[in-house]
């Protein structure tokens, strides 16, 4: 019985079709043909790469390793180790040994941890093994090239004359441009006499960071000093700024003023980034809370009353138009494109009244008078709608136009304010995302046990919301750090701008590569450190644990 049913249900018999040519082509012919083709291509590429690297030209050595062309002992060892034939054979040998180990393990049905890893990630099937070989050789030779340029063939002398003599016989990098300009890269044109103040600031930050790392690791004995560390951090900001700037108005002495136009390089980049991050965070937080606020609207009567009071005050304090005024309205398709409109006193007054009361009416009618929310939405969407560079130009070029001539605001200050205002809008949206992820029940439970609105925000909602968005916030901060490179466009000498001036020095002309590699490395180290700290914070807070 069973057998009969089974045979009857056998799809091969049941769905028998005269000729499934399409399926046969797809399954058997092309399936195999493509595989074969792919295998041929992979094997072929591997052969080509192996052959090319086997015959690769030897690395060239700098004057230090080969004075006057005589290769010293160290030079000879390097030549032997970086020899194309040697490296290629070594990689091949390792690859074959690895394959052997995996096959041996599979045959004996015994895969220890490392061998299992090898099998899963390096020798996943035939194609995987071939790709491993291909990538291994590429990586090894890319590293060899980088070392040959940056180390074996490089000239490290910081003496421009010595470098110039050897320039033609130096096959690799000329790192002297970095070494000789270290001070510029670090602090820009900050005066030598005051550089110690930068060091002291740095020391403060390093000490605090180290203490914090200890205090915030799990089960630390320093746990009870955490609040003090927070206060110390808050105090460190004005202290370091004072150290860097000096006492305003003093031109001599150890605390003489160093105007911000002399700040530069890495110092400036860090100052902008840190001030931007630290100060934009509370603003972003407030914006996010404001955007979600459901403050019961200001009644229309109050809005209109406030508008009228504002208008009266404005008119009484000199804003009232005393004579007819002419405005030039820009008109498209006209030549000249300006259309003068003359408004009498009455027309002008009416226009002003309509403008103010009309805006307030819109707010009252469409947004139930929630002014806070309206402002936050308007601000966030305005800032998110323009690029940072526009905000910086606004701060730098446009702001002075609106201000009286006598008031002159520090360039760095304007740029920092621009960066803060910009990044606050993005932070606000990140934080709002976190706030939205908190279920309604949390608010209700907090209310039900009697917490006030601010207590439940501070103790229940924000700790959870911020925890949820740590990765996004750190991403924002890293972005901000890198975006500081834009300030070079508005005339600040940050790390990138310093690099450009260094390249233009007559002593070191034409050394872009070394300079840009160096500052890229600096940027990378810092962004990587931020990411690492964020991972640590997440671990300590136990994100995703509950």
């Amino acid at each position, binding site marked *: 019985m069973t057998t009969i049913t089974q045979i009857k249900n056998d799809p091969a018999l049941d769905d028998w079709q005269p000729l499934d040519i399409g399926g046969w082509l797809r399954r058997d012919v092309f399936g195999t043909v493509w595989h074969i083709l792919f295998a041929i291509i992979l094997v072929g590429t591997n052969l080509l790469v192996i052959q090319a690297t086997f015959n690769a030209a030897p690395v060239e050595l700098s004057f230090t390793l080969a004075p006057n062309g005589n290769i010293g002992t160290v030079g000879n060892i390097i030549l032997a180790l970086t020899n194309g034939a040697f490296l290629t054979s070594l990689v091949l040998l390792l690859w074959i040994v690895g394959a052997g180990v995996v096959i041996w393990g599979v045959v004996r049905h015994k895969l220890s941890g490392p061998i299992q890893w090898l099998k899963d990630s390096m020798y996943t099937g035939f194609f995987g093994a071939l790709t491993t070989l291909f990538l291994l050789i590429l990586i090894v030779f890319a590293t060899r090239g980088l070392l040959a340029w940056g180390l074996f063939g490089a000239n490290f002398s910081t003496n421009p004359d010595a470098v110039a003599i050897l320039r033609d016989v130096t096959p690799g990098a000329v790192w002297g441009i970095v070494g000789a300009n270290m001070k510029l890269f670090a602090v820009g044109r900050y005066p030598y006499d005051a550089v110690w103040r930068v060091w002291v600031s740095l020391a403060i930050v390093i000490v605090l960071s180290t203490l914090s790392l200890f205090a915030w690791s799990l089960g630390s004995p320093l746990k009870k000093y955490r609040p003090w560390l927070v206060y110390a951090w808050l105090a460190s900001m004005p202290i370091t700024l004072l150290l860097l700037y000096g006492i305003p108005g003093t031109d001599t002495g150890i605390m003489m003023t160093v105007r911000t136009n002399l700040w530069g390089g890495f110092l400036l980049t860090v100052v902008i980034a840190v001030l931007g991050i630290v100060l934009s965070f509370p603003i972003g937080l407030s914006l996010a809370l404001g955007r979600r606020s459901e403050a019961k609207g200001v009644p229309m009567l109050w809005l209109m009353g406030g508008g009228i009071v504002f208008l009266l005050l404005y008119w009484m304090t000199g804003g009232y138009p005393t004579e007819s005024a002419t405005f030039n309205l820009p008109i498209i398709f006209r030549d000249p494109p300006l259309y003068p409109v003359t408004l009498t006193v009455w027309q002008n007054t009416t226009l002003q009244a309509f403008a103010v009361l009309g805006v307030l009416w819109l707010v009252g009618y469409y947004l139930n008078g929630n002014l806070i929310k309206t402002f936050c939405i308007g601000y966030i969407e305005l800032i998110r709608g323009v690029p940072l560079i526009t905000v910086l130009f606004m701060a730098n070029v446009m702001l002075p136009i609106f201000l009286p001539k006598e008031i002159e605001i520090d360039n760095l200050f304007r740029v920092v304010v621009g960066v803060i205002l910009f990044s606050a809008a993005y932070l606000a949206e990140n934080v709002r995302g976190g706030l939205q992820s908190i279920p309604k029940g949390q608010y209700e439970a907090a209310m039900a*046990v009697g917490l006030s609105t601010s207590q439940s925000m501070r103790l229940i909602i924000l700790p959870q919301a911020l925890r949820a968005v740590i990765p996004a916030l750190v991403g924002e901060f890293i972005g901000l750090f890198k975006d500081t490179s834009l300030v070079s466009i508005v005339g600040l000498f940050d790390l990138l701008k310093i690099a450009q001036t260094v390249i233009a020095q007559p002593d070191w002309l034409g050394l872009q590569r070394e300079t840009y590699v160096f500052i890229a490395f600096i940027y990378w180290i810092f962004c990587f450190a931020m990411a690492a700290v964020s991972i640590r914070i997440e671990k300590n807070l136990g994100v995703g644990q*509950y």
Partner: protein
Amino acid sequence: MVKELGAPVIVCEDVHKWYGDFHALRGVNTTVREGEVVVILGPSGSGKSTWIRTLNRLEEHQRGRIIVHGTELNNDVRNIQEIRREVGMVFQQFNLFPHLTVLENITLAPIQVRKWSRDRAEEEGMKQLTRVKIPEQASKYPGQLSGGQQQRVAIARALAMQPKIMLFDEPTSALDPEMIKEVLDVMQDLANDGMTILAVTHEMGFARNVADRVIFFDEGNIVEENKPNTFFSNPREERSKLFLQQILHH
């Protein structure tokens, strides 16, 4: 055993509530006395949750008067805060604070709202945890507990504020059958200790054995209130009969 009931602690007079155009509470009138255990029954969507949540202002009522413990609920924030201090609430979904340990969940409000010292709050917290029979879980996080344990922590959290009244909104509906009993036992202990309890629940056994009164809700209003025995054996209203038939058939 006849229970001595005290003075009225909750008075509702003609309470109305609208959600937009929807008339959710339609003139609720009732009085709850000190030490009374009231079970609220009724079909889904009849306004049980809405009513119980107006009692501590999680929902605002638009007409009528609610007086809790001598204080009238109105827009005055101080009144609301005062009433919330005296009224504990337990939710269907527990709503524990996941980023705090069990003990921190319990001590948070006493420290922040009652301004107790940490030591006193922790002592009181441990007492409440012992009362709900899980003192050994104090340093765990809510996510590490079973549903029944979480709900008992939620009860301990409400009790730590030393409330005069406890509100329960379907406290066992999100629990597996074997955990329901441990929560009901705790509620029964509370009732025996003389706590004033208002509970929305479908646990008929609890209603029969523990409640002093059953309130039957339908379409936003109280249809019938009675002693549990009378209500279950001899319901007065047609709608109550229908409702009882439906749940007893299950």
